[in-house]
């Protein structure tokens, strides 16, 4: 974590190293795009199935660059009062009353300029990211959950890093934030938004990388068991499940196996710890039907 928030990386390898130190193993394209995002100052749109570490990437970037993480969790019905800024109307009312009584009744009414200043502004995440004197990592999580109007509102922020407040004018970013938008691809995002972003498709990691990730987060696990675990998780992911197991769940499972003192995944351990990676009743049935017999077979032959 030698990097200061202001410094800019020299090469993709440097970014990969920094992310590794922040306990995130990035593949080549992820590191490259993280590097490009910092050098070009462009937002990154990260898409991929749930649980591949999209949000974690933002957190790791924040750790590795030493920048503060500002997070905006999107949901249906999110509006600008909750995402950008809001006027602190209580304080404004008090101000009006206070000045009115101080000036007595004969004086002029309170001017707009007096109550529409930064003192009366409530900063919401996007505003906070822009106005922060230190550069930040801004994570706009699950952008696909909002509606297109909200997306349109983001465009000004994403291309120019500025926000327009009708009563005050523009507020521009003093520093360049790293912006990550994640999407679970539940709907098509607008072209306008995509055009302003770099695009990163994150998928489940390849076998070797996932083993590495698991061993990084659960160091006590031995290599053979980690390999076996990843094989089983990959098998489970190939089924048509409502919710395939994520990387985080694979790590949880590895920790569980360590606690259980298991040295191989046989039918019994699998059944006992199944609920760590499968969280849906119908999925449980399907996995029990399709995976358990295959486990037994492989176990018998080895």
């Amino acid at each position, binding site marked *: 974590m030698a990097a200061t928030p202001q410094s800019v990386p020299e*090469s*993709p390898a440097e970014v990969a190293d920094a992310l590794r130190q922040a306990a995130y193993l990035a593949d*080549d*394209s992820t590191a*490259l*795009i993280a*590097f*490009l995002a910092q*050098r*070009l100052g*462009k937002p990154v*749109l990260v*898409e991929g199935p749930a649980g591949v570490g999209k949000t974690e990437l933002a957190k790791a970037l924040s750790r590795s660059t030493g920048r503060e993480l500002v997070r905006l969790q999107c949901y*249906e*019905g999110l*509006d600008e*009062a909750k995402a950008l800024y*809001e*006027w602190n*109307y209580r304080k*404004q*009312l008090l101000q*009006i009353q206070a000045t009115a009584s101080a000036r007595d009744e004969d004086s002029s*009414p*309170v001017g707009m300029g007096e*109550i529409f200043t930064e003192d009366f502004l409530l900063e919401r995440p996007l505003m906070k990211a822009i106005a922060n004197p230190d550069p930040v990592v801004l994570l706009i999580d699950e952008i696909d959950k909002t*509606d297109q109007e909200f997306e349109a509102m983001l465009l000004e922020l994403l291309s120019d890093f500025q926000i327009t407040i009708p009563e005050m004018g523009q507020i521009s970013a003093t520093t360049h934030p790293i912006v990550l938008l994640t999407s679970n*691809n*539940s*709907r*098509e995002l607008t*072209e306008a938004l*995509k*055009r302003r*972003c*770099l*695009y*990163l*498709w994150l998928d489940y990691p390849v076998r070797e990388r996932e083993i590495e990730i698991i061993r990084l987060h659960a160091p006590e696990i031995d290599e053979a068991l980690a*390999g076996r675990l990843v094989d089983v998780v990959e098998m489970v992911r190939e089924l*048509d499940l*409502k919710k395939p197991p994520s990387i985080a769940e694979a790590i949880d499972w590895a920790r569980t196996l360590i606690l259980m003192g298991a040295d191989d995944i046989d039918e019994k351990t699998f059944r006992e710890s199944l609920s760590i990676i499968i969280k849906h009743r*119908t*999925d449980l*049935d*399907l996995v029990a039907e399709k995976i358990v017999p295959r486990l037994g077979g*492989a176990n018998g*032959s*080895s």
Partner: protein
Amino acid sequence: MADAPSGMAEQILAFCEELRSEGVAIGTSEIQDSFRALEIVPWTSSVDFKEALATTVAKSPKDREIFDLIFDRHFFRATEHAALEYAPEAGEGRKAALSEQARDDLSMEALAEAIRQAIAEGDESAMNELARLAIEAFGRQGEGSGVVGVDMQRIRRGLGLSPSGDTGGDAESDGERLDRDQIARFERQLRRELQRQQIQRQGQLPPARPLSELNRSLPMRGAQDLAAVHKAVAQMKRRLATLGHDPRGAKRGRTVDVRRTMRSSLETGGVPLNLKYRPRRPRKPEIYVLCDVSTSVSSASTFFLSVLHALHDSFRKLRSFVFIERISEVTHVFEEERDFSAIAEKITSTGGVADISGYTDYGRVWTEFLTDVSADLGPRSTVIVLGDARTNGRPPAEDVFARVADRANRTFWLNPEPELYWNYGDSVMSAYTPFCDGAFECWKTEHLEQFVDVVASGKVETSQSTARKYTSGHRY
């Protein structure tokens, strides 16, 4: 691109042109981005170069697929073109680079073994070398046919490469496991090398052809289709949930948002002149899907069932029915079963929808639906009919259907036949369209996406239904 080889910028522009011609939307600003990205990326590394280009111009998994196909083709052609222009004897030099000893010593088995190892290690440059060796070895045996596809087949068979999964090999240790992807990588090298040699032989480039539909939609597998249907339905979910509720009593029962009212009242000196309302939370739609499973739609019914299957994943309040002569509720089947084939099996075997003849009887189906279910229909209900409207000469009973449509908020009809065939023969589509909010042809995933788009844009009009739009209370 100060230190880039001359012509690189043009190459990238030409490449983007080619992508555009394949339907990837690339804006000028995105091309500028790619140039800026390539300025700071060590573009001599082909992986970095490709990824930097991809991240700036290909912005969806589908675009990325096309990007990969075009990228390989375009830059392969570009290098070959340059090779032909500048160094006619480059091919000879390349051949000589292979050590004599390696060429003589390698028997077929040793070659296959070496290739397997290189594939397992994922060593691209070794694979490239070995691909060339393999071609040469087969060429020596006098088996080179000059046709790329034929040679590929021969070499593949000669080397005996097959994914480990196919042989069931439990004896194989981890180190020797080869999966399909790894082998595919080697075969790509092989194909490229064969093409290169062909180009050398002929001294010219084959003409560039647009990607065929087939190439684009690869890989075409059942599961893939199912995934596409699921995706389209997931989009539909959002749109059905948020659209089409406003018509009736839009202003009734709205709650005042005190905070926002106070805030706006500041402009009027604290007097709340303009009331602000809380945004309406989208109501959860109730969906009723009626799916024809008779023999006349047998080709489409797998598709329809997969639509149903996907719908069940997305909606809580969904009741599904299948019908032929009678109607039968199958909601419970989807709740109990997860696996698609099991569901299809169960529905066809135990649905109990065919009475005697096995021909669809729409009139009877509507009547049954009306008596059994329509009491539950209300202003939140959406009825979706999946069927071909072929009544086999039986009365269509459109008046009964009209009553169903009247009770539901919205009614959509998805017909598995192209619009051209509607109303020919025993199809009575025109009897029903006046009562639908929309009638669509639907026999591919794209149509389903179109349906979603049309519903979303609010312009529910098809050529069939425009003239006789059913207007009472349905506004869009």
